[in-house]
């Protein structure tokens, strides 16, 4: 039994950093606009985890309040982004990120 191993807040920060980079990697390599959006959600979640961790480390509720605002912005972003994707995919069902220039004008 490992009893000496204690979970410090830094573990959560490291996990958040790893999640953020996985999300960034996915955002850069995927070409399906829907999956790219999911990767953005992944990055936002990594950041909220970091905020909650700092909130606990500093015993400051401000970190948790910021998470509420991040949630609201994420919801608004998903609604508008998915509306754009719907408009795009209705025109071209096989559209990738390269075809977003189609919406121009």
């Amino acid at each position, binding site marked *: 039994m490992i009893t000496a191993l204690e*979970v410090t*807040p830094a573990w959560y920060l490291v996990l958040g950093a790893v*999640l953020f980079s996985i999300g960034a990697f996915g955002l850069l390599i995927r070409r399906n606009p829907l999956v790219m959006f999911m990767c953005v959600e992944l990055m936002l979640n990594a950041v909220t985890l970091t905020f909650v961790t700092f909130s606990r480390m*500093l015993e400051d509720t401000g970190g948790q309040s910021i998470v*509420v605002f991040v949630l609201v*912005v994420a919801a608004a972003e998903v609604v508008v982004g998915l509306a754009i994707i719907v408009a795009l995919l209705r025109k071209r069902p096989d559209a990738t990120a390269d075809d977003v220039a189609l919406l121009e004008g």
Partner: protein
Amino acid sequence: MSVELFVFVVAGGACLAGAIGVVASTHPVHAALSLVGTLFGIAVLFVAQEANFLAAVQVIVYAGAIVVLFLFVIMLLGVDRADDLEVEPLIGQRVAAAIVSLGILALTFGAIASTGYEATGAVVGFDEDVPDINRLGESLFTTYLFAFEITSILLVIAIAGAVLMARHSRRSDEIVDPGQEERAEEIAERMEAAERRAHPELAIGNGHRRGDGEGADAGDAESEPEEVGR
């Protein structure tokens, strides 16, 4: 093994597995379901850090609303085809993406390590006896009241924008699609061939009628069900 370590390993593992699933799954539906795994893992980690209200909100808003919205879009638009991840459309894109994301990772690790794994800044300190939801409510409705009110405007704008963009409008016909004429021609040809097979005696008459301006329009109208059926 302490309880907190066990919770961290299980929830963190779920987060990482889900994140890799989102990036690596070829099918958008599988990616959305992997995203749920990550979101639940993060909700558990919120509980482990005494942010119970945020954990509940995380599950309700993310897993309950945002992922469902993703699934609705995937299924309603019929784009649930698997992507081919073998081909790399831009040469060197993956290598560059790996370098950039590893750079981000190194930067954040460096930032965490440089402070000796401790938060720098004043510890505010809160009353442990007050539940986290009370403290959060007090913070939102006093310190962050103005920002809180602004988010309501943001949400109204988002709803209006979504309705405006997702609405079927006549003007969408005017959007120029580079591949449209090519496809319309191909479909018209295929329709003609099929008609000729079905009615060999009318072949000459059909071919003549398709020749004039109406042919392109008819082909265009047929293109919609063709795409959906694929």
